[in-house]
């Protein structure tokens, strides 16, 4: 098991390296980012001071170096103008648009994003698991139809619409705070229990909004999977042993149907992150979604590059977790690397 985990981790590192190259290439692809524009303007002005500033900027950000070297410097594999100073060393680069270090721009939003998405996943699973299981066991009864109906509504409603509805009615009906991830009074305060509590309450509505469509899709999938499994011979064997109805379902087919469920953790994360951009905009959430959007628009490539890399790390970490969980759940996967 430990060897399996190590092997998975090793693969993940290599994947990440490859992904980082791709990201660097892609964010540098379109011409005309903030910095090059600035340098071109300085050079065009022809003044000695401006030209020398342009040269300084080129050197500072290694723009005079070939692309692969720029990449290595960005990652921190290669000494840049200031020695080894890249992402590996914790220097995330400079946001030209906001004229601040990337680390400072992203800062709290990073943790908010992680927290929000983690909670959203927990919400998805907590709701989808029982709902899907009941819908399958009670297939083609009113319980099933109700679960299906709820599922379709969840699937069919665009989440920004759901956000708008809850935005207006959540406060009115349930007294839930809406908009932003914390009260204004905590905005620039250091973390405290009061602030934490406030953040959690503020998260309830966004979690529902972000998680609903994923949850609905998962209910449908679990129902279909479980329905398949319920007809399998080993379920009949369990019944022939005299196992009670509930235990028959929970111990055998549900565990089999869980596999794709667990494997989904990795897939869920990126869709949650990208799906939540709109929601974050509508609800004014301080996550990295809106920051990524504006960074991509203005071609602020250190900023967008880092955020994309961060989302990739999140995804790969999710995949790793789901792989390891699968191995724990399913002996066939655990044994596949081993000689019989």
């Amino acid at each position: 098991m430990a060897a399996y985990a190590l092997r998975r981790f090793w693969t993940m590192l290599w994947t990440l390296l490859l992904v980082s190259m791709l990201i660097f290439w892609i964010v540098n692809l379109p011409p005309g980012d903030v910095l090059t524009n600035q340098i071109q303007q300085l050079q065009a002005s022809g003044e000695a001071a401006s030209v020398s500033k342009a040269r300084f900027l080129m050197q500072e950000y290694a723009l005079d170096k070939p692309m692969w070297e720029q990449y290595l410097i960005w990652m921190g594999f290669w000494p840049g103008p200031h020695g080894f100073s890249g992402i590996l060393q914790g220097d995330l680069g400079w946001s030209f648009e906001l004229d601040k270090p990337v680390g400072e721009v992203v800062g709290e939003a990073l943790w908010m994003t992680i927290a929000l998405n983690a909670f959203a996943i927990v919400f998805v699973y907590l709701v989808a698991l029982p709902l899907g299981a009941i819908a399958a066991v009670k297939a083609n009864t009113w319980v099933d139809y109700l679960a299906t109906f709820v599922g379709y509504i969840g699937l069919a409603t665009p989440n920004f619409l759901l956000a708008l509805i809850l935005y207006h009615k959540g406060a009115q009906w349930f007294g839930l705070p809406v908009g932003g991830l914390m009260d204004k009074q905590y905005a620039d305060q250091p973390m405290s229990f009061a602030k934490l509590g406030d953040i959690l309450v503020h998260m309830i509505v966004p979690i529902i909004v972000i998680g609903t469509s994923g949850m609905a899709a998962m209910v449908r999938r679990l129902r279909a999977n479980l329905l398949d499994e319920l007809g399998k011979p080993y379920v009949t064997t369990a019944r022939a042993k005299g196992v009670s109805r509930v235990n028959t379902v929970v111990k055998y087919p549900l565990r089999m149907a869980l596999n794709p469920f667990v494997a989904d953790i990795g897939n869920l994360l990126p869709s949650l992150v990208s799906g939540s951009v709109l929601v974050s905009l509508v609800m004014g959430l301080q996550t990295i979604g809106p920051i990524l959007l504006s960074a991509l628009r203005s071609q602020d490539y250190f900023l967008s590059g880092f955020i994309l890399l961060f989302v990739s790390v999140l995804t790969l970490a999710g995949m790793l977790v789901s792989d390891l969980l699968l191995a724990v759940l399913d002996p066939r996967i655990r044994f596949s690397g081993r000689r019989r």
Partner: protein
Amino acid sequence: MASDRAMRTETRASGRAEDGASTPLLDVRGLGVRFGDRRTGMEVVSGVDFHLMRGETLAIVGESGSGKTVSGKALLRILPKGASVSAGTAMFAGRDGRPPRDLLALSRSDMRAVRGGSISMIFQEPMSSLSPLHTIGDQTAEAVRLHTDLRGAAVRDRCLEVFDQVGFPDPARAYDAYPFELSGGLRQRAMIAMALVCGPDLMIADEPTTALDVTTQAQVLDLIKRLQKDMGLAVILVTHDLGVVANMADRVVVMRKGRVVETGTTEDILERPGHGYTRALIAAAPELPVGKPVHHGGVPDPIFWARNLSKTYAGRRSGIGAAAPEIKAVRNVELAVGRGETMAVVGESGSGKSTIAKLMLRAEEPDAGAEVGFKGADGEVLDVTALSGAALKAFRARVQIVFQDPYASLSPRMAVMDILTEPLRVHGKGGDRERRERAAEMMRKVGLSPEHLSRFPHAFSGGQRQRISIARALMLEPELLVCDEPTSALDVSVQAQVLALLKELRDEMGLSYLFISHDLTVVADLADRVAVMRRGRIVEEGPATLLFENPQHPYTRALIAASPEPDLSRRLDLAAVARGAGEPETWPEPFAYSGDQAPGLVEVAPGHFVRCAA
């Protein structure tokens, strides 16, 4: 119900009188099962009566769709979704000494106590009938906890005791093993252990050995018989195989289309069958030939041959840096199909028989040094291993293949016309009209109506589908047909028809067959020569009749001894099975060898070769 019983034909009243002394363990009367609801549903089983004494074995025999499995499941009330018991009683007198209770009327919780407690059931496919996610021990212990007061270590001890009884070489290891770590035979032993761990009065065995190799089948049948004697267990054996019935059952119920057509003692049914259907079933059961003329000698005019044929697969590496172990699926096989003849390759799963066909057809590349030759009707000798491009394509048109599963090998989205004309399209032969005419002709040849060409495969039964597969293989006018277990997915009576068709086509069209099968009895009638394979090697090869009448190798003898036949005078010879079914190391001298040290083939009679030390 009463009218049902009156409608039944030819139910022999045997047994009833002698049973008068004691109450039967189980007395089923007027059992009916319906799929769907009361108004629109369909009765798939109706008016089924039978009874069973303590310690007795009752076989329920029938082909697929006869309602035999449903009847068995109805007793435990574990019918699939949509099916329900519509009529009848099943009085069960358990060991507890209580008066007989009606299984079909028990409350849900009482029924759960019966299931796995006093009546247990085992199924056909031991792999899919066991949960792959739980250890054998876990799944067995569950039954113990449900039906006995044993807890903690005592549960494990009880399981280990039963594992030992059913013949696990290492019960403690089996306890912690997952189903996929065990062989098919051991999996079925695990199922049996699970069924017997609570000491039931009755075990319902639904085709318990159908998915197993013949030698394994013989051992599992013997095990069931032995346990039955030791534990005083009654068994209901649901099967399609009259050979199994002859070896196991005391009494037989023959079912057809949801009704009982005949009941009686095994002796009565097998030797004096009253109903036409029973007679047809017995006639269709494949048997080993006795007293056919023997053709001595080798292959005079080979059409398709292989020499020095080997295939080595790289196994899975056991760790980082470790060398991948080699799996030798086929080793140094030499084989020749005579023109107009049938060469049968027989072996159990994993023996390498299908790999040989793949290698000879170049679906997979053999190891270096192999020689595969084909000499068609034009007299030109092709070196198959060296063919490529257009020459390979032309060769493939001359050698066609019929697959095992007619359900999987025909595209459900293509009409039969498209299925049949596709090979012609691929090889660019003939015009549109010509192709259609040929398709119609082939349909007639395989005994189907050309009017059905516009239908889709789902409209046909398994046997008809296999006829379509054969027609498709014949579309390109091949000279040789490779048949890869073409009948193993079919009912016995259908199997007999398909085999007869193959024989007819061969003689009529001058075809040659390479016939691959796991079952000696299936090839007995069709084959001119037989090669028996074990662990990637041919252990015995020779003219069919000679091989059946005078088998030399212990493994061939084991296969023959393990083939159950519907003949009470020819019971399974377990001693012979035990001598030959094991690993090559366990074979008696001069046949034994270990690892790669196999002896060569020795010619014991003209054309009859046996692998043994000279």
